[in-house]
């Protein structure tokens, strides 16, 4: 749909599961891209994330197509704690079903981590606000500046269900000598939050960031915009072991942030009550970076230090004797499928459930928790999960005509254009990434190998003419005698080397009783096998995975365009 310029439709389709296409199209950790099969035929995956942003940026009038809440409520009241992506997703799924949803947020604006921890040069405030508003405008009762301080009190207010989406709000500290002798050492996520809410607007020229995850990248790039011009990100281990996404590292280095490897913090150097530097041990690691030895100690001068070495959950406001059990790491015991705690009717999701993950996981937790809450309120066991569905429909329209774009586009991944370095540092909230232009979008979309289009084989129709085998550009088809999997993998047209990819083996073929084997591994879904098949034994069929949401079974969950 993006290729056809149907941006509004693609946005709405994406929104059903993703909920925040505009936000995630900029900030997602992209767990989907490593799975993209384009990497099996060339180096880089399709820019799935960026294409979602294209749809969000270019969509037309869309508000009239959003779900709405019915005027008549169903009489059930649900409390959500924390206005981050998990809670907002729950609200998004439950409001149209008639629930009265109350949302408690400690800040005065919605978004949670998406607002406090993601700098505005990566995620413009307007995009964030719009997608939060799309949910809240269904009539969510939002209580800003209302941190929940006692779960017991909240439970006493008679809600039918409570959802905890408070994230992992506590940044890890680094208790080494000198830590408490200055006020120029900052906890990364707290510091970012203070910047986001305007409480901090400058930093020293020399800044050290401790840690090399994505929060560290946000800290160093934010520092660059608040007055820092000699910024070093300090990593204990070699580059291959960094937690930050490769593209975030690239973006930071483009802004002349120096990334220093193999340095372990030893102490803060304080002179006359003033932070002047930090001492590190320079390490040498063995081949797999498991053991290290100290080569020397070095002192790097600095005016500020930002600690970005991870974050933890903290639930001081949940009393421990109200039926919500915690494990030995002081984490609530949460069911991984239902997201219910040990107290029926209390659910957790997002980072608060299983520790820090990312936004898209928080959204998925929200969807699943919404299903549980709906079950809980309707008297259905929370363990009763609605089934997923799958539609498979032939795409053949006529001779050499398919209702999907099957021409392979050899283009490389399109490069995101960035705002000039000089320009981007002028203000904190100048968005660095410009998004794809229409030509880039068209090329990038055509890189997709159509994983939703399946090659479907009907053995009884095959006359073993070899046409499909001869035409296949990536040698993924073989007709041979059947055998054990290991034996078969070695006898195919091209060796099936990806053992995680199951082989397709057909029933015995009519003429010789041999079998058709397909190694899906590098299939580019060009459909030439089906096009060259004289008996339509091969067909290209679109598989539509139908995902259930709270109150919407797959039978009614039509993905038809609006």
């Amino acid at each position, binding site marked *: 749909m993006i290729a056809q310029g149907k941006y509004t439709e693609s946005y709405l389709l994406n929104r059903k599961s993703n909920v925040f296409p505009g936000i995630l199209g900029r900030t997602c950790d992209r767990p989907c891209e490593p799975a993209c099969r384009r990497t*099996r035929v060339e180096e880089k995956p399709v820019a799935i994330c960026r294409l979602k942003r294209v749809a969000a940026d270019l969509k037309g009038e869309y508000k009239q197509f959003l779900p709405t809440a019915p005027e008549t409520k169903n009489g059930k009241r649900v409390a959500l704690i924390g206005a981050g992506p998990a809670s907002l997703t729950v609200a998004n799924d439950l409001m149209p079903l008639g629930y009265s949803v109350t949302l408690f947020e400690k800040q005065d604006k919605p978004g949670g981590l998406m607002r406090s921890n993601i700098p505005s040069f990566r995620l413009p405030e307007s995009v964030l606000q719009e997608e939060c508003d799309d949910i809240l405008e269904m009539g969510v009762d939002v209580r800003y500046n209302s941190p929940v301080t006692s779960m017991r009190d909240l439970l006493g207010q008679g809600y039918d269900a409570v959802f905890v989406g408070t994230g992992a709000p506590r940044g890890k500290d680094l208790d080494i000598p000198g830590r408490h002798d200055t006020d120029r050492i900052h906890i990364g996520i707290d510091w970012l939050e203070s910047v986001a809410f305007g409480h901090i607007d400058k930093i020293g020229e020399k800044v050290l960031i401790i840690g090399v995850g994505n929060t560290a990248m946000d800290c160093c790039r934010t520092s660059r915009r608040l007055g820092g011009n000699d910024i070093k990100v300090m990593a204990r281990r070699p580059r291959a072991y960094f937690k930050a996404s490769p593209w975030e590292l690239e973006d930071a280095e483009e802004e002349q942030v120096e990334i220093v490897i193999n340095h372990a913090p030893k102490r803060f150097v304080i002179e006359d009550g003033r932070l002047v530097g930090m001492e590190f041990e320079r390490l040498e690691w063995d081949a797999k970076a498991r053991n290290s030895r100290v080569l020397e100690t070095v002192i790097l001068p600095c005016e500020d230090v930002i600690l970005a070495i991870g974050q933890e959950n903290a639930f001081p406001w949940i009393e421990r004797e109200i039926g919500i059990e915690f494990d030995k790491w002081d984490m609530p015991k949460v069911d991984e499928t239902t997201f219910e705690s040990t107290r029926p009717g209390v659910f957790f999701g997002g980072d608060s459930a299983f520790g820090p993950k990312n936004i898209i996981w928080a959204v998925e937790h929200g969807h699943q928790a919404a299903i549980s809450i709906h079950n809980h309120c309707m008297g259905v066991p929370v363990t009763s999960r609605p089934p997923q569905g799958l539609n498979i429909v032939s795409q053949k329209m006529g001779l*050499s005509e398919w209702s999907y774009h099957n021409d392979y586009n050899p283009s490389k991944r399109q490069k995101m254009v960035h705002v000039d370095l000089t320009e981007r540092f002028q203000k904190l909230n100048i968005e660095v990434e410009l998004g794809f232009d229409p030509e880039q979008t068209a090329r990038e979309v055509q890189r997709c190998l159509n994983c939703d289009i399946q090659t479907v084989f009907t053995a009884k129709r095959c*006359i*073993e*003419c070899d046409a499909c085998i*001869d035409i296949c550009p*990536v040698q993924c088809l073989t007709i041979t005698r059947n055998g054990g999997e290991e034996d078969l993998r070695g006898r195919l047209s091209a060796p099936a080397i990806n053992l995680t990819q199951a082989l397709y083996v057909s029933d015995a073929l009519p*003429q010789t009783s041999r079998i058709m084997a397909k190694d899906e591994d590098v299939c580019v879904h060009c459909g*030439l096998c089906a*096009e060259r098949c004289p008996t339509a034994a091969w067909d290209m069929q679109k598989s539509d995975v139908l995902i259930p949401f709270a109150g919407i079974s797959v039978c009614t969950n039509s993905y038809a365009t609006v």
Partner: protein
Amino acid sequence: MPSIAKPVAKHPSLQRNKLDLTIRDYEGAMSTLCAGCGHDSITAAIVKALWKMSIEPHRIAKLSGIGCSSKTPTYFVNGAHGFNSAHGRMPSIAAGASAANRDLVYIGVSGDGDSLSIGLGQLCHAIRRNVKMVYVIENNGVYGLTKGQFSASTDIGSTSKKGDPNRMPPIDPVTMALSIGATFVARSFSGDKDQLVPVLEAAVAHRGFALIDVISPCVTFNDHKGSTKSYLASRQSMVRPIETDFVPPAEEILAQIGTNGVTSVTMHDGSVLRFTAVPKDYDPTDRGKVSAYLRERAAAGEVVTGLLYVDESQPDMHEMSQTVATPLVNVPYSKLCPGSGALSKLLDQFR
């Protein structure tokens, strides 16, 4: 005909031959033949054989006449030379080209109409001259390009698509070639690349004219019940009494030897043809015995496939004509055409 180009995407473990080329480098244009045509499989086998033998694409010349089969040289080795001649006249073009440049690898592709009807005389004389070339007859027993009339190779009793039986006896290119002295005679099936590819390799290595009759079902006009050259009927009537390995010089291949023994024939270039599982008393170098064996099996309703006969002792066209070893295209013009003075001297000898 496919509406899209064949994707350039390649399998990551795609192998390279001695020229550092992949099999994709030996492909041609997209086929415009009917989906499922046997000819496309033969094309794929030719691509594979030429790739395996690491023949430089520009050292290959593709030749053909008229018919569905004769379209196929377009579909393999884009980088080769090509000549699409008049109907049935490809053997003369090949002979002429070979006369001018004996160094190229000549791949002639023809069909049962092109070779056994209009071009039969041409074929016979190319065999007689022992022109060094591979001559593939893509034999489907039907005139596909003109919508399904019986051809000269249609078997007695085989029916047309509408059900009418053929009453005229077929010309079998294999026994015909044997009878007029062909030095390399093989038969194969488009659906059996395990056999066809090594036979093609052997044919390229042969020092003279290599005839390969390939049963190649016409999926549109001759793949019905009642046809003797449908995919199903071909599979049912085909026997494969001989397994052929092609062993290039200096490359050891270990193969299982069948119970019936093994016969090896050394080719002119030092490569070895190894016949395994050969029937008792079968001698692929004894023309008389091979002919008798083929007649016997044909009477039993079997179509014998494999490399059936080979004779590396016979001189090819150039040896018979005592031409120079240098391809004529490389002989300096002054030597090739020494001028009117030299001609006068020559004519004087006859006065």
